[in-house]
């Protein structure tokens, strides 16, 4: 055992040395992508070399304390909300049996298809003074009825909890359904009642998964830009946007970004730790544990609870979107909608192809050079998922704008030549930002497929005379096809739904569906935003279908 691990360490060290002395093309690539991810972070840190004291002064007097309070409310509220919803629903569908359980277990993932900002504006529209909820309430209970204002901190927390609980739900359900009943039986054989067993064993055992889901939720909540701006609920993301587009201070935006990033960084460290623990706690039984059958009253309570959540988080909002869309269809379904859709689709597809190609190359690099250095560079390359879109937009825009300006000055001074802006306002910036942000989604799908293409498969193929391109086409590609398809779909949908990066780095006047939703909702035009939102919702269903197939296959 010891000599074996020593051998491995030595081999790994040799691999690292080879990397440093004679890097291969694969390793150059991993280094380049890792540097691309690190660049925005470095630039953001460097932004502190010129502190924008004026703006900070202003911020401290007006906004900063509110920002911190709001962020705190968001973090605590959304964590509590998603945990309550996610864990209870996961326990019911993962470990119990009640009418409709098999359908609920995938239906409850549907809110994933609804971007947070869409759910946010639908809720605002629904609870509006003239909306479909207040009017009948007032009609029944009179004009003086007090109705809590949805445009409040609790409103934001409610909307985000409903939109984000599936992350906790999905991870926790897997934990419960593989180990729930067996652990409960062991506890019972040791003298625990089923209820005591749940709290003493099942819940603590699922803790890494629950916490893993919660960190994902927190990253999303901290990174959220669309929903909080629709609710006028100022957080760091909206402050970054305002600093840039309101005060025109890229430096202040960068400095605010570093604060947000350091919070997210803590979450990443936490998440990586939890991942390790999930590996340790993995149950060896892969078979589904038997379910707890709920008796008469409880089972209908479970059914109504699940339907209730589903109705509020998905079906009612979706129905409302449909109603609004139909109402404005004749006005809105025109050439402009076609252009928006075309832009979103082409942007999504271009980004999906670009990212999938790079992700596939990275996966091959990791396969060819499994030394510690290459693998850590790949890890770094996939960390961008944690960077909030607003932060990333600032971080990628700052160096490229500087480079552009340098080139323009250089050309003018030396060659008396008026060089146009090369990168600012082109979609190259957007694509690079997407690459950083969505690399993880693409890489993970392809890498998990790549793990099945073992070196033994290569050797078996070589013995049968397949090598080079033939090996790639006849063996590798068919085996990777599923992973590549998943990567394309996930990235495509993510890019379609993405709002802040597109909003902040797009060429002037270049609108997509998501950007249009931002513009319309900031003017309170819920009905006109419905058609683009419904389009995004339909796209968002694609990855859920993939997810369902994946879990059913197991």
């Amino acid at each position, binding site marked *: 055992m010891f000599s074996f691990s020593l051998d491995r360490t030595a081999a790994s060290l040799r691999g690292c040395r080879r990397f440093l002395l004679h890097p291969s093309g694969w390793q150059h690539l991993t280094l380049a992508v890792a540097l691309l991810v690190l660049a925005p972070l470095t630039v953001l840190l460097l932004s502190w070399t010129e502190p924008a004291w004026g703006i900070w002064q202003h911020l401290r007097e007006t906004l900063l304390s509110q920002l911190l309070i709001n962020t705190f409310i968001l973090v605590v509220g959304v964590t509590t909300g998603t945990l309550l919803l996610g864990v209870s629903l996961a326990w019911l569908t993962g470990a119990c049996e009640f009418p409709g359980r098999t359908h609920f277990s995938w239906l409850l993932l549907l809110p994933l298809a609804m971007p947070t900002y869409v759910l946010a504006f639908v809720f605002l529209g629904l609870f509006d003074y003239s909306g479909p909820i207040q009017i009948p309430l007032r009609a029944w209970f009179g004009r003086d009825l007090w109705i809590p204002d949805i445009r409040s901190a609790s409103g934001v927390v409610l909307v985000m909890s409903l939109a984000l609980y599936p992350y906790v739900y999905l991870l926790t359900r897997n934990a419960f359904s593989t180990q729930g009943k067996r652990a409960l039986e062991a506890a*019972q*054989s040791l003298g625990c009642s089923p209820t005591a067993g749940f709290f003493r064993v099942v819940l603590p055992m699922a803790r890494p998964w629950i916490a893993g889901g919660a960190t994902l939720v927190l990253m999303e909540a901290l990174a959220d830009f669309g929903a909080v701006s629709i609710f006028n609920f100022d957080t760091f993301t909206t402050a970054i946007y305002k600093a840039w587009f309101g005060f025109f201070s890229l430096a202040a935006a960068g400095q605010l970004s570093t604060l947000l990033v350091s919070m997210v960084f803590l979450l990443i460290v936490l998440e990586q730790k939890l991942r390790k623990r999930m590996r340790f706690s993995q149950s060896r039984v892969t078979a589904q544990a038997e379910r707890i059958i709920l008796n008469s009253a409880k089972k209908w309570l479970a059914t109504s609870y699940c339907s209730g959540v589903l109705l509020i988080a998905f079906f009612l909002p979706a129905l409302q979107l449909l109603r609004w869309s139909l109402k404005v269809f004749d006005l809105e379904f025109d050439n402009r909608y076609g252009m928006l859709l075309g832009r979103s689709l082409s942007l999504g597809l271009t980004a999906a192809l670009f990212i999938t190609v790079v992700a596939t190359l990275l996966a091959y690099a990791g396969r060819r050079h499994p030394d510690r250095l290459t693998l850590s560079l790949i890890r770094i390359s996939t960390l961008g998922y944690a960077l909030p879109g607003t932060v990333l937009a600032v971080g990628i825009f700052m160096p490229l704008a500087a480079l552009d300006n340098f080139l323009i000055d250089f050309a003018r001074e030396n060659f008396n030549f008026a060089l146009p802006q090369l990168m600012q306002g082109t979609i190259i910036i957007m694509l690079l930002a997407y690459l950083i942000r969505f690399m993880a989604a693409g890489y993970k799908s392809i890498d998990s497929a790549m793990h099945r293409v073992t070196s033994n498969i290569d050797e078996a193929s070589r013995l049968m005379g397949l090598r080079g391109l033939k090996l790639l086409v006849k063996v590798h590609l068919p085996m990777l096809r599923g992973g590549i398809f998943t990567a394309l779909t996930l990235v495509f949908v993510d890019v379609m739904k993405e709002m802040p990066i597109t909003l902040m780095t797009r060429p002037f006047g270049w609108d997509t569906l998501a950007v249009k939703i931002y513009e319309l909702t900031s003017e309170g035009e819920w009905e006109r935003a419905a058609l683009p939102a419904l389009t995004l919702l339909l796209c968002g269903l694609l990855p859920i279908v993939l997810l369902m197939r994946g879990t059913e296959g197991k």
Partner: protein
Amino acid sequence: MIMNDKTQPSLELKKISQAYGKQRVVKDLSLTLNPGEIGCLLGASGCGKTTVLRTIAGFEPLLAGEIFISGEKVSSADFSLPPAKRKIGMVFQDYALFPHLSLFDNVAFGLRGHNKVETLRRVNDALDLVGLQSEREKFPHEISGGQQQRVALARALSPQPELLLMDEPFSNLDVALRERLSLEVRDILKHYGITALFVTHNQHEAFAVADRIGVMHTGEILQWDTAHRLYHQPVSAKIAEFVGEGVLLSGVVRENSQVECGLGRLTGIFNQALAVNTAVQILVRPEDVVHDDDSSVKAKVLRRNFRGANILYQLRLESGEHVQALVPSHCDHQPGELIGIQPDVRHLILFPFP
């Protein structure tokens, strides 16, 4: 560990039946375990043995019959004592150790309602018992499979159950470890006089650990007996085929306690009274066939399996039937050779053709 009331059996199953949907998986099964006895349910997968164990633990409802633990009724068709109240300990096939607790906390899990000193003493006793005292602060994923198995045993024993149940307790271990641990577990159980019932599909395990073994087939116990009697006095052809190695030759009963078959005329004590000229099956074990070059009975070597001290030959008799012979390995023959063999049986195990 616990002094059982000697007058009561520790476990008594009275004609229990179990079904999943319409399919009966256990049929009218009865057995009794006395205090300190180790019982075993032996059978292929799907024979219902695990269902019986889970029913005793209280995880499955009973369709008919009754279950008593130390004289107290715990299960019947309309009653089921919750598992937590049955005073049983259970070792699961996958051990089901709690991954979020240290070994110490795993073993201490079932010891609620004791003061700290008492808990500490009992956990230490249990860990000493399985020789894992020095690893007590570790977590389940940090120890080997064999150690996990022992922790599972310590955890089940620490609350001093009236009855220990074990579901395929050794099946996740490699062969060498399985053999060593099964003997160790028997020593521990015997030393403390613990009553236990376990299920396995592995005969060697059953023989090594159990005092009494029930061979199960399609939800029924075909024979509930000691290992010795199962091997030497099987009650049916099915048991004879299932337990140990051997073949059933067809033959006919003759006068004077003789049977005629492909090995010639065999004389010996019958296992049951049979009329002359009855067509029977005769159990012939590999050790019943002796190699003898001078013998008139010749057989052709089909296959040889070298086992170190012995060679197990697969032979074809002139009658066309196959037998096995266990021969000292210095008598080395190759497939295709004709060798002389001699039957060496004193007790004849005969079953009339159905």
